[in-house]
């Protein structure tokens, strides 16, 4: 069976078993190794990508189900020498990365979360991270970085609004 979908803005075809996990197609066929197969059971969140803008664990997503969809991977979030996504930039500036294996999934999950929840509280950020496991960092500094990022975003919005008045 042939599955056609958009991958990081490009048309992509896959000819094989439609039950093949999206993660395997990304890593083994497309050599996009940013998404990680850590538990491959949907517990850790390291394989998270966006399908039509929503975070999805690619290890659990049969390729057949992304037919006609638009898939964005971590590589597509800020490609080439483009600037980092603001959340990535916040993580870099706060020096929260350690081994880094969980971060591509963490960024894909949380970038959608901050887009949809610009006023999220710290407990809400914590709850949103429950599907992304990190074994190195102990989470709190990542949560700080997300909270700071949201504060800055709010401040930017206020500045822009003030400028329009």
């Amino acid at each position, binding site marked *: 069976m042939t599955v056609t979908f958009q991958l990081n803005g490009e048309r992509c075809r896959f000819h094989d078993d439609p039950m093949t996990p999206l993660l395997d197609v990304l890593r083994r066929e497309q050599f996009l*190794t940013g998404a990680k197969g850590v*538990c491959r059971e949907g517990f850790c969140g390291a394989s998270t990508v966006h399908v039509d803008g929503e975070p999805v664990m690619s290890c659990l997503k049969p390729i057949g189900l992304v037919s006609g969809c638009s898939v964005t991977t971590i590589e597509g979030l800020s490609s080439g020498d483009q600037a980092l996504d603001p959340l*990535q930039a916040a993580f870099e500036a706060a020096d929260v990365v350690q081994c880094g294996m969980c971060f591509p999934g963490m960024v894909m999950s949380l970038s959608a979360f901050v887009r949809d929840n610009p006023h999220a509280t710290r407990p809400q950020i914590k709850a949103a991270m429950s599907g992304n496991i990190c074994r190195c960092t102990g989470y709190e500094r990542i949560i700080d970085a997300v909270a700071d990022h949201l504060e800055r975003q709010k401040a930017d919005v206020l500045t822009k609004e003030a400028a329009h008045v």
Partner: protein
Amino acid sequence: MSDLSTTVMDLPRRDARDKLRGRTRYTVDRVRPDMLHAVLLRSNVPAGRIVKLDISAAREAPGVRAIATGHDAPGLYGIGIADHPLLAIDTIRYHGEPIVAIAAETEAQARAALALVVLDIEPVAPVLTMGEALAKDARLVHEGWRDYEVLTEGGARDGNIAWEARTTRGDVEEAFARPDVTIVETTIRVGRQSHVPFEPRTAIGSWENGRAHIETSTQVPWTVRNVTGRVLQLPPGRVRVTVPPVGGGFGLKFDATIEPITALLARITGRTVVIENSRQEEMATCLCRENAEILIRSAVTADGEIAGREAVVLMDCGAYGGEQIFLSTMTAHTLGGNYRVGAMRLVSRAVYTNTPPNGAFRACNGVYNTFALERHTDEICQALDLDPLAFRKKNVLGDGDLGATGQVFDGDVLKPMLERMDTLRATTGTLEEKADGRLYGRATTVGTWFVFVGPSAATINMNADGSATLVTSGVEIGSGTMMQSLPQMVAGQLGLSPDQVVVREADTDSAGLDVGVGGGRTTVSIGAASIGAAAEVRDKLFGFASELLQTRPEELELVGGRVAIKGRPGSGIAVSTVVQHAQTVSGPITGTGSFTGKGVPSMSGCAFGHFIEALEIPIFVVHEAEVAVDPDTGHVEVLAYRVVQDVGRALNRRAIMGQIQGGVVQGLGYALHEAVTIAPDGRIREDGFETYRVPLAGDVVPVVADLYEGAPSSGPLGTKGAGEVPILGVAAAIGCAVANATGKPVRELPLTPPRVLGLLKGRETSPEFPHIAASFEANTLA
């Protein structure tokens, strides 16, 4: 070294951007379509004898390119004792032990071929617990233990006792016989902890110009090189190991495991071969933090003087000795640490069982021995009606005090750290009100750890643009030393900015010997070697600049990328100009440095079977936890966590804070819910994320930490390791806080809700060890 203003900074990690963009290629991301995939046939019984092994049908299967068995790699490896075959030969000693390796064009083909291997194992009754292993007439896990090559002399061994380390200082029996002492005894039992690095152990082997080249996710490239040489019976120099960024290690990758198999299959096929552990394999064969059983007994006077102490520590090494043989050493320095004790004797035994081999895990041995010692200390205080904090302030190791092996400690460190904890607590306040009707407990505990010094080498090559390339066998496992402390140190020494220091990742062909990344040693050992290399470079730069500037070398300094005249910033000549000049005159400027521990004296006749007789660079911690225990469910909530950590000198405070937060959270998992158990068939039950519960974001609290600087350290610039030790005191602080909250004796981990509820309801009994004799001497081979 006086001016460290250009060394100490919150330098961000240089690898963060690629890691955040998903561009970093860990070993697991380097699989190419032209590689062969290898899979392992593993034993599904814990003990037995291979009576038939027929690989002929598998060899004919589609896509199969090579099959290896134990006979293809007959050399044995190990630490202290060479007891471990690469692939089982005749005897099966644990569930999951690899027996056959198959390389095929695809992983699916290799797995299909596995099913065609004809394997008959005659099972024998397994020895699954240390109690069984130490029973009279127990079956020997290694029948031929006497015949093994001894790699390190000195340990007593006997049958299922793979190694015994013993210390004795002073007359313990006399101390216990004193009329003015109370004797307090505590028994402790802890299970295993699984590391769960996000990148599983993965290796890619190829055969190049008659040599093996292994690219692997390891903390110890030189160990992989040497073990591969041993098992393949090659000179180790015919093995090259390179290490891409490592996706977490925590000690699991401190030994060689699957790497030599890839080299073996690459030699047979001439192709590049990858082995990637599945998550199930990774966890089922995890070289866990070992389960342990501890009896500790002290003789203490009414006013709280510890006159005598003795302890027996049993460490399960699983089917092969591995790290536990080395770690038996550490009991003297962890259980034997923290306090000033009159007379002390300790025995630490690594015991063979038919279970998956254990290994090293961040502050290995120290975590549970600190838990045992600190719970024991609180039980002493309870028995004698003493205040635990005052008891600690009175008795912690200070300047001139003796350790278990008779080493003399230098400086008062723990007592001022305890006072700093008082200050920290006064600043943050406490959170008893958040217990909200639940049982509230708080505890302050101390811990002793060390820097695993040992050989490291470094070379610095100066480049014509004025930058420096640092070549070492260091590995970036996530802790940041290769990204932060090393470039900061070299830059500080050479008057460069850290981004002018290129740090080469490990390649055993390009850098000298290193014992690996672990034991909190990278900043200290590789750092010292790097500073040595920088000193040679500096002298050469000064030599050339002195001629060019007509100034004496002692009047020069390296600052802002220039060889400047002291006290006149901006004067002198650019480093790049000096380097270019040197290249035309006498050749490129390079410097080399090397380091190993100098050795700290212990008292003669105190330590037997020890790999480390005294701590070269001790590290101390003070941890404090506040918990709320739900009396209806037994659930423990951590309300607050505070740390005072002896860091020697903090080169990058923000990075150290990150290590403390992460290390404490790993410790919380161990203390509260990470449990590895052995099924009756000898298999590790918790072999996935569903059954093994690691901390999630909702489980954790922000750790408040105060970095204690200025304690004595022979480390470069006064540093100590800061990444390993944050986990050391967590089980102790949580265990003591839960005991305080419940008023019950906490003697086992993890403190899951059922266990805590059992404690509250009086259903949990203290561990009893029939295989530990009442008399200390009966527990030793002496």
